[in-house]
């Protein structure tokens, strides 16, 4: 194992260069944050992920952000265990009615200023699940959404670009 670690140490990082913050996301946020609280977050964001009825595909790609290739933490963005520690709720899924209360409670528990990101087609529009008795549909029918990341699931690079845009915009205040 030590040989392995030594090789990792001498072999240079496997992490790839980050993408530039995504343009559509920047544009969406620019308008939103005009009105938002102007607290400086010091170039760091804590994210609480909430699965509100996802198929778990979105979770797999969000997980990938933490692998050494995308390495989200180098940008000062990290996932936290409690909404009480979070600046951002990253919500996936078409808001299953059985999860609605838990989602709202997570939002209530998140301190201000806070942002909500709808991740994946389900969270953005309700996807294939918007009709029917079991789902509410898009997240913005339940919470005010600041940023939409489409895709089924969004690729890690797209997630990264969107989150960087959020970081840039929130830190610029």
């Amino acid at each position: 194992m030590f040989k392995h670690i030594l090789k990792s140490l001498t072999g240079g990082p496997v992490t790839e260069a980050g993408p530039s913050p995504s343009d559509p996301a920047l544009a969406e946020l620019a308008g939103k944050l005009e009105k938002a609280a102007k607290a400086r977050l010091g170039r760091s964001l804590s994210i609480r992920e909430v699965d509100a009825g996802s198929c778990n595909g979105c979770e797999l790609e969000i997980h990938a952000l933490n692998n050494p290739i995308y390495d989200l933490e180098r940008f000062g963005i990290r996932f936290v265990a409690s909404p009480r520690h979070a600046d951002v709720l990253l919500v996936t899924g078409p808001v299953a009615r059985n999860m609605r209360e838990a989602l709202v409670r997570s939002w209530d528990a998140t301190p201000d200023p806070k942002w909500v990101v709808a991740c994946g087609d389900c969270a953005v529009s309700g996807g294939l699940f918007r009709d029917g008795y079991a789902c509410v549909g898009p997240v913005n029918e339940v919470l005010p959404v600041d940023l939409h990341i489409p895709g089924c699931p969004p690729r890690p690079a797209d997630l990264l670009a969107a989150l960087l845009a959020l970081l840039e915009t929130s830190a610029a205040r």
Partner: protein
Amino acid sequence: MYGEQPLFGLLNRIGGAPVADHRPWPRYRVTREGWLSLIEEMEGSAWSLLGLWGEPKEVFVALREDMSGDIAVVSLECPQGRFPSLSAVRPSANRLERAAHDLYGLTAERTTDPRPWLDHDAWGVRRPLSDRPGAPSPNPGPYTFLPVEGEGLHQIPVGPVHAGIIEPGHFRFTANGETVVRLEERLGYVHRGIEGLMRGKPVAEAARLAARISGDSTVAHSLAFARAVEAAVDLRVPPRAVWLRALMAELERVANHLGDIGAICNDAAFAFMLAEMSQLREAVLRAADLCFGHRLMMDRVVPGGVAADLPERGPALLLDLCAELRRRFPPLVTIYDGKASLQDRTVGTGIVSTGLVNRFGASGPVGRASGRGLDARRNPGYAPYDDLEFEVPVLTECDVNARVWIRIREVEQSIALIEQIARRMPGLPRGLDGTTPLPLVPLEAGQGGAGTREGLSLVESFRGDILTWVRVEADGTIGRCHPRDPSWFQWPLLEAAIEGNIVADFPLCNKSFNCSYAGHDL
């Protein structure tokens, strides 16, 4: 005590009437007396319950005689909405019966547990899929957990929102100090109403829903759905499509197992392994993306064939991937095996007895780590696996460590399968100009019979066997589809696995199972 009474023999003897156009295995419709004799026979037999699902006026159960591999569906018409429960002879039936009650309003008589399951009083409707959906209960009470009595016990409620990036569900631990005396699960939080949404949809649209039952097994669920539809309408898919499907299924299996091995070690505080395994997983997903245009290969397996073919350089790219995995995976396995502090956490933790996995018919790594060596690719088996060489690893240690080792062995087997497929794939690859047509046959209306046609399939996902049953209506739409994820028969065993372990080992046990919430909640 296997097979003392052949399944088909019994079904004929109790007066089951075969139903026309049900493929590839038969469906027998029995009377109430027949159903009762079936329950009696199940008591003394080892037939596996493969699934149980409802319709507004009928209940269905799929059974398998494990030794011979004989499979049959038995159904009982219940105009009054009641049927005798199977839960006393097959405890695995209980949650399925509760789901059939919540969705279809079918009542299981003399059930071992009548509480609601998927219905959390949040839909604004009761029995949403029955003929007569009901108004929501005016003042829903809280869910009653099973009572626990004893000195010095305390309860720890966890969820539905957990600490990590995982799916939601509620766990109610009763502990005595550090030791878990009982775990009770409450699931259903991510119920999206998939069975209801599939009703009346054209096959192609329903297939997109099937692909989103559980994102980590999107290929396997799509395959199970496609095979069930193809069985119903008696459609043969081109050989190249059959091989491409297996290729995607094995890529999915490798990617998930790599992720799971890393995640299990991470929950034993060995983050190094997660960092390494997640890089290998990423390599697999990127190869899948290059070959099929989607990292998870969602919507690529469709009824009739496949929706994406390998590019010309695909086979070479896959062989390179396999070579990389063969170079990088074994040293990591050696590290896992040699780390005493890691073994200390995984060996002897979270034991599930062989008797219990057999009783619940648990498949996948959970079953195979506890001596239940079934694999749907072999039993009942489907193409092209009869043409490929692979082994099904089985262990009898029944603990977290055994579940890790099953995954390690399966990664090795799947790498070998991907190599075989890449080398022997029949048919022509898609040309750069896209001129070679896709291996896909269109579904014609009225194929396989003029009326309704029913099909059943059993497909091995990375998690275990998926059973999918469909009815295709005369107009080509889906009348009913029931996809049964392997998680249904694994979740209850997690409750058993944690008993007597310390609370802090729960994440480890849970990861070693890695049941799907979405696949279960539907």
